[in-house]
């Protein structure tokens, strides 16, 4: 299963949730599959989906799911220490770990080699960290949303993207409709 297959299984689970989605192919695939006003698409700024997700979880009470990638987490590895030390019960961080930079030509990341992001997250102080297969990801995310404990899920899937259009939605529109969902 590649990222897009994981997204298909996640669709019914996250469509009603506040979702912060990583730059590039992940946002484009999610947008093409099931655009929701409750999705905050990162159109730029690699590496901040997890930070934005944590901040949003701290700022309000609704569940927040941040969908990040292994390459992006490696770009901003300090985020795991911030998350580990500031646990928010309503926060779920899903790291789609396909071992590659999917948006730039599937070059390998160190997470696809020797670096274990789940072990890093644990070492950073996160208490509830799970490594799951692509197939088990949806169930793990569903359980994490339902629980009162902050959960980091590292989903091991295959490298690869599907061809989808870029997101043409105006960024202010994305922000406004997302804020309305947060207020709702």
């Amino acid at each position, binding site marked *: 299963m590649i990222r897009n297959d994981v997204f298909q299984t996640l669709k019914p689970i996250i469509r009603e949730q506040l979702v912060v989605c990583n730059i590039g192919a992940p946002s484009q695939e999610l947008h093409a599959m099931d655009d929701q006003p409750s999705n905050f698409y990162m159109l*730029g700024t690699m590496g901040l989906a997890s930070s934005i997700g944590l901040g949003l979880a701290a700022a309000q009470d609704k569940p927040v799911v941040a969908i990040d990638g292994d*390459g992006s987490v490696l770009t901003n590895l300090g985020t795991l220490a911030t998350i580990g030390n500031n646990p928010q019960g309503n926060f779920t961080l899903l790291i789609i770990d396909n071992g590659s930079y999917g*948006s730039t030509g599937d*070059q390998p990341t160190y997470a696809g080699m020797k670096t274990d992001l789940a072990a890093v997250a644990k070492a950073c102080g996160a208490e509830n960290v799970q490594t799951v297969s692509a197939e088990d990801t949806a169930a793990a995310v569903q359980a994490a949303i339902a629980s009162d404990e902050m959960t980091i899920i590292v989903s091991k899937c295959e490298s690869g993207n599907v061809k989808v259009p*870029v997101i043409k939605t105006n960024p202010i529109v994305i922000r406004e409709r997302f804020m309305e969902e947060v207020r709702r």
Partner: protein
Amino acid sequence: MATEMDHQIVKDLKAAGIDYITSVPCKQLAGVIEVLDETPEIMHMPSNKEDEGMGLCAVAFMGGMKPAIVMQNTALGVVVNTLATLIQFYQIPLPMLISYRGEVGEPVACQVEMALHTKAILNQLHIPTYHFHKPEDAAELPGILEYAQMASKPVAILCDASFWRASA
């Protein structure tokens, strides 16, 4: 997938004695990175972030190697401090092969935002900047690489979408 131009660029890097390259990928640089991985004369050590990459390059130079970095222009927003306080302060020669996203031919609107600041940042930092827009512009690469060594400075080589498209 790598084009003749990707091979030519790596050939020029090799001919200039560049033997250490770090990279953070970009779609436009995928071919160059692919060729680098097939070039045993150049040690290719990918970095997770461009300022980390510049740290690697600085010490590769001190260890006697000739480094270069391959990165996207958006990362210029990440590396300003590292350029000023490490690369420039210690006078490390550092060719920066930069994909110039956000120019004509760009599909992603967000990339335009940093394209607007790219040359301004480089100007502000007094970094010699070369812009490859047409395939024939790449003929300047050997001279630019030599210039970086002579001047002991970082130099920026911006390669835009028109350049990559016409070189394909």
